[in-house]
């Protein structure tokens, strides 16, 4: 067996395992989906209450696509935390698997899961509000999602090291990071309303560019060529964050092995 085959097989191990976990927790999956749909509907109804079609679209896009981004971020960022909680972290770390392989498997599953989860919410909201997407530029939205996902995966990988570095607080730090991204990325409002220092921070979040690009594509039907200013930062962040995430993960693993932080707790 070639090394590549072995690594691919190992990568699929994480996809299959996460799929099995999703099946076993199907009750929670349904509950979470209902909650996400209810949350997206509630937020979008604010636009209906205001009688503003553009606001309806804007809020709907924020709710739906933030759901996607947060699902992807959580899945990757909690890769270590899940294993620590279940007590399997040491077993996985002992296996002859490169960390890149592990992260690749977790990432692929996160993207597929996020797309399905978000797709269901999108369909429900479009049907509920009877929205007309005939003028939307779906290619623009799709491209922003694809490129933006890469950047978000990179941030997720960076966040995944926190539970390696901080046994007790790592997961809490990850949650706080996700909350900050929600606040500064203009999920439900324009980043122009943020204080100046927050606007600066918003430029560091890939979600800002993703949501801006998706809104312009779906609401205004703008082609991707008109939005290159939003695309380049995403590409740059993807190029930076993914290698940086893998590198940082390796460093964090070595630190954890030196200090004994792979050991089970909880």
């Amino acid at each position, binding site marked *: 067996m070639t090394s590549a085959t072995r690594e691919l097989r190992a990568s699929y*191990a994480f996809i*299959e395992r996460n799929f099995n*976990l999703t099946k076993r927790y199907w009750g929670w999956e349904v509950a979470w989906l209902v909650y996400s749909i209810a949350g997206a509907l509630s937020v979008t109804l604010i636009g209906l209450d205001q009688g503003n079609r553009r606001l309806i679209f804007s809020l709907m896009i924020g709710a739906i696509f933030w759901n996607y981004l947060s699902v992807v971020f959580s899945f990757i960022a909690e890769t270590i935390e899940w294993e620590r909680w*279940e007590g399997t972290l*040491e077993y*996985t*770390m002992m296996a002859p698997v490169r960390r890149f392989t592990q992260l690749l498997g977790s990432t692929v599953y996160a993207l597929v899961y996020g797309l399905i989860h978000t797709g269901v919410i999108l369909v429900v909201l479009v049907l509920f509000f009877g929205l007309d997407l005939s003028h939307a530029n779906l290619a623009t939205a799709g491209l922003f999602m694809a490129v933006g996902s890469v950047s978000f995966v990179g941030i997720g990988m960076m966040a995944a090291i926190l539970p390696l570095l901080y046994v007790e607080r790592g997961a809490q730090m990850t949650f706080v990071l996700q909350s900050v991204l929600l606040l500064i990325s203009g999920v439900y409002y324009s980043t122009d309303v943020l204080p100046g220092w927050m606007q600066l921070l918003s430029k560091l979040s890939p979600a800002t560019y993703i949501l801006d690009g998706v809104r312009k594509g779906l609401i205004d039907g703008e082609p991707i060529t008109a939005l290159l200013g939003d695309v380049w930062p995403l590409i740059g962040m993807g190029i930076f964050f993914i290698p940086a995430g893998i590198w940082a993960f390796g460093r964090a693993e070595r630190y954890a092995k*030196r200090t*004994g932080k792979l050991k089970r707790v909880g």
Partner: protein
Amino acid sequence: MTSTMTPESNRTGTNGRLPDEPKVAPVSTEPGTRAEPVREGPPALLIEHATKRFIVGKKRRPVVAISDVSLRIERGAIHGVLGANGSGKSTLIRLISGLLTLDEGRVEVFGHDIVREEMAVKRLINRVSVDAAFFKKLSPSENLSFAARLYGMDAKAAAQRAVEILARLGIGQKRMGRPIEQMSRGMQQKVAIARALLTSPILLLLDEPTTGLDPRSKLDVQIFIEEVRTEHNATIVLTTHDLVEAERLCGRISILNDGRMVAEATPAGLMAMVARDHGQPETLEAVFMTYTGRSLDDDLEETGVTDDDD
């Protein structure tokens, strides 16, 4: 074995080896008894002057968990490691597993350095810890499939092998699909052992594998450990608090105390030493008490408080 250290022998400069003591385990090919370790080629496990420190507490106090430990285990041996809670047994297993980095010294597994040839070593070893670590909502089948893929195995072939191994341990196929959380502690531990064997390790690290098992399950596991050694030609490092188990299974035993290896010999050799040098009864409990400075009861009581030896 290269190191056989006792406080007495260190003082006399003989490094503790009894002049008339064999270097390898006694030979027996009868079923259920110890077979001859193989001395050709590199040893299954070579530890030279391994030291591991941790920084603990707000004052960042360094604590030496493993101190200058050396050990050589030949292929096909079952080597026991005894010691009180906190003596460093689990730390030693984690160092061999690559879950901790060494501060000093080196470790080789079948001639492969665990630092420079990490992936090669990982393919040769597996470990069963005292707490069966699984995704508890998943079934044995799903957990073992995950393990098989991690080690690059074909899932279908692995599933068949898993059924065979679990059947041997008394777990029927009908249990394979139910969540592990519905299994007893003993059954979970058997699945953990099956998972380790599934990947055909030639060095198996068993960290208190029978702790908490009922007598029947314990016996099943012990018999299976012997089978694994004889039929799969695996080398086994076994930490345990069960002295009967150690005497039954292990060709040689090392005693760890406060991170130091204070004695190492055959079970009979250790018992003879405490009888001769300390006037103690010829039992492994006397060996344990002599070299760790505590009774077995003290140690077992602490087991309920902490599940770790670090």
